[in-house]
C-alpha cells in the first residue's frame, strides 16, 4: 500500500518535472531576448536538479545526490557569469 502511494507520487513528480523542463526549453527556444533565455536556463537547472533528486528517491540510491549538487553549483556559476556578460559585455573585469 505504501509502496503504491510512493510509486504513484514519484511517477507523477517525474512527469511534472520533465514537463516543466520542456516548457522552460520552449522559452529558451522562443526567447525573444537574451535575458529571457538566461532566466529560463537558470530555471531549467533547478527543474533538472529536482528531477534527479526524485529519480534517486524512486530508485532508492543516493548516487543521484552528488549529480544534483554539482548541477546546483554549476547552475549558479553559469547564471552569474551570463548575467555579468549581459550587463557589462565581459565576464571577468
Amino acid at each position, binding site marked *: 500500500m505504501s*509502496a503504491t502511494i510512493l*510509486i504513484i507520487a514519484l511517477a507523477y513528480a517525474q512527469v511534472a*518535472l520533465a514537463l516543466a523542463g520542456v516548457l*522552460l526549453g520552449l522559452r529558451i527556444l522562443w526567447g525573444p531576448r537574451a535575458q529571457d533565455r538566461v*532566466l529560463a536556463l537558470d530555471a531549467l537547472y533547478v527543474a533538472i*536538479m529536482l528531477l534527479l533528486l*526524485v529519480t534517486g528517491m524512486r530508485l532508492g540510491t543516493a548516487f543521484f545526490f552528488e549529480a544534483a549538487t554539482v548541477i546546483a553549483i554549476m547552475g549558479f556559476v553559469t547564471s552569474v557569469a*551570463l548575467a*555579468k556578460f*549581459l550587463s557589462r559585455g565581459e565576464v571577468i573585469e
Partner: protein
Amino acid sequence: MTALADVPLALAIPIAALVVLGSTLTLIGATGVLRLQSFYDRLHAPTLATSWGTGAIIIASALLFTFIDGRAVVHEFVIGAFIVLTTPVTLMMLGRAALERDRAEGGKAMPEMPEPDPSPDHGPDRGPDRGPNHGRSET
C-alpha cells in the same frame, strides 16, 4: 522497489504529499516562465521552484533516506541552503542586467519608467517581444 515497500504508511503519505507539492509548484513556475508577457513578470516565476518546490522535495528525500538508511540523512539540506542563498543573487544580477540593457536601448519595455511621448498604447505590461525594436535588438 523493495526499499519503498518497507516504508510505513504514516511516513509514505507525508513523503508522497511533499513530492507532489514540490513538483506541482515547479510545474506552475515553469508555466509562468512560458506564459507571462513581460520579462520583468517572468523574473518572478522561477522562485516558485526555488522556494517550496526545492524545499518540499528535499524534505521528502531526507525523510525517505533517513528511513531507508536507518540514520539521520541531512545532506540534502546542503542543496537547499545553496539554492536559497544563490537564487536571490542570480535573479537580482539578471534583473539589473536586463534593466541596463533596456535603458541603453531607450526603455520601451521597462516597467514604470516615464515615457518621453505619452502615447496610450505603451502600457507597462507591454512585453519586450512586441516592442517596435523587435528583430533588431535580438542578441
